[in-house]
């Protein structure tokens, strides 16, 4: 069992979820409550990371963010940093490619808040933050949970983008899913099998626990 890779995967999944979900909530709320000509196009554009093979997405990200690119040069010159072949690059990539999984379910959840509840919330004199936190978040929670579960799982399993942008560097960019892939490639089926099994058991337990806790949480105050 490659513990280093395992912890890296967990770190990557968690950071992606922690960064992406709040951003997705704002975007989802905006999309849900505003209507404009370009909206269907924007919504479709958000799906782009899903439509191309992950390795290809990774390739374009690599070219777009690498040291030869404008972004890469700007980053190197002014921040002395880089987004390729290191962990922060992976986080960025994971956030980008998981946008569709985060946005869509949350947007649907916002759209489903009944008009009269929205009206009442507006008339209650709460600050927008309080409203979001006290009223809207509990109501869109099932959608947010779906988003979290999808993103978390998908980051765990994702290896195309990660491999391309990260370069399989142990301790830095070699996630468990790359380790499993490597083992399969190297015919170390025993290692691949045990790592897969471990990852599965872990992920299923975490997800089941999450869904159970969230159900209890929601049941404790209702549904």
């Amino acid at each position, binding site marked *: 069992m490659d513990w280093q890779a395992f912890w890296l995967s967990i770190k990557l999944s968690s950071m992606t979820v922690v960064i992406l979900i709040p951003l997705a909530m704002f975007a989802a709320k905006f999309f849900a409550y505003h209507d404009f000509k370009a909206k269907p196009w924007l919504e479709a554009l958000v799906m782009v990371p899903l439509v191309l093979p992950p390795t290809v997405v990774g390739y374009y990200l690599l070219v777009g963010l690498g040291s030869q690119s404008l972004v890469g040069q700007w980053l190197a010159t002014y921040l002395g940093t880089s987004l390729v072949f290191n962990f922060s690059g992976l986080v960025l990539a994971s956030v980008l490619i998981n946008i569709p999984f985060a946005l869509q379910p949350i947007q649907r959840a916002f759209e489903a808040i*009944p008009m*009269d*509840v929205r*009206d*009442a*919330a*507006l*008339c*209650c*004199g*709460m*600050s927008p933050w*309080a409203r979001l936190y*006290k*009223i809207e978040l*509990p*109501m869109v*929670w099932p959608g947010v949970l779906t988003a979290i579960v999808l993103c978390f799982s998908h980051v765990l399993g994702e290896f195309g983008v990660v491999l391309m942008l990260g370069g399989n560097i142990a301790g830095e960019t070699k996630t468990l899913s790359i380790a499993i892939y490597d083992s399969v490639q190297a015919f170390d089926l025993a290692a691949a099998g045990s790592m897969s099994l471990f990852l599965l058991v872990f992920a299923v337990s975490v997800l089941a626990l999450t869904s159970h806790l969230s159900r209890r949480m*929601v049941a404790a*105050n*209702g*549904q």
Partner: protein
Amino acid sequence: MANNPDEFRCQISQQTPIPLQLDFSCQGGEILAIVGPSGGGKTSLLRMLAGLSQPQEGEISLGEEVWFDSEKHLCLSPQQRHIGYVPQHFGLFPRLTALENVLAGLDHLPKSQRREHGLTWLQRVGLGDYGHRLPRQLSGGQKQRVALARALSREPKVLLLDEPFSALDVQTRDGLYQHLIQLIDELAIPIILVTHDIQEAFLLADKMLLLHQGKMLQSGAPAEIWAKPVNELVARQMGHKNILPVECIGLTQSDAEFSLAGQTLRLPSATGIELGTQFGCIFNQASLRLMPLEVNQLGDTAEHWLWVRVIQVRVIAGAVRVELMLEQSECMLELILEPGLNLEFGLPGSRLLNIQPNQRRQLAVDPWRLILIPS
């Protein structure tokens, strides 16, 4: 504009999405009841007052504070207006408990006072023990009371109530009336109350406004509107039942003769009555008296009485409801017989009066109590 310090003024007009044309005001400490047929635009109006939608044109203000002005493109948000609003369908927050729902409106209070204040109001609406319940665990009337507590507890600058008592029984309702009256004594704010219950409007409202298809049909003190409805629709909304078409067929200086389904009535003359004009005539309860069975008691000249046939008799709360049909016509009259009012003073109950379906009876009419409305 030199307004009263807490006069709430509203003057709006629009064509779409639904036509609305209104101009009214409500002083602090006053209750303005808005009544009208279902679909008349009452909820739409309240949403505009709350800032949840914008009229096409007009102005809404509270004292010196302008809330909406179409010319200046000014529109305060619902938060800025600091209103209390009970939506028609309650709009409770489904994931918050009853108490949290009430507390949600108390952000303007210091944190330490909120809980106590919220609990007090839950108790006032009779839900002291239900604070921990979620909306979906409450009955219809309990939900409505939570919504009421949420709106009343926040000491708003204006209170907007959309049929706030519709799901409540008489007893609970009566208790809440008291709290509302108490609140108005304490805060002296304008209260706009949409209601379908005329009794409620009479009991609570200082002014009343009749809304039909977005137009103000009539406004004024409830008793005034009741006594002088401008047309049949208003009359019916005010609870008048026996509105029959009459035509002026004779006119002297003091009297006017009217034909009513073949029978003739002599009423005191008044301005505006001309030969041949048609009116709706409201035979309200106080104007009618059913005569005992011995016929011809009033003589044969029909001046202040009508021949009717009894159609149905039904005992209702402490009284008897009789349906009568004017002879030789399809005109129906409804009569609530309370002992001593429309009957000679005596014991109640149709049995004692011996009113039976299909009887032919005389109905005495008090001409001074009839109400004529343009038809």
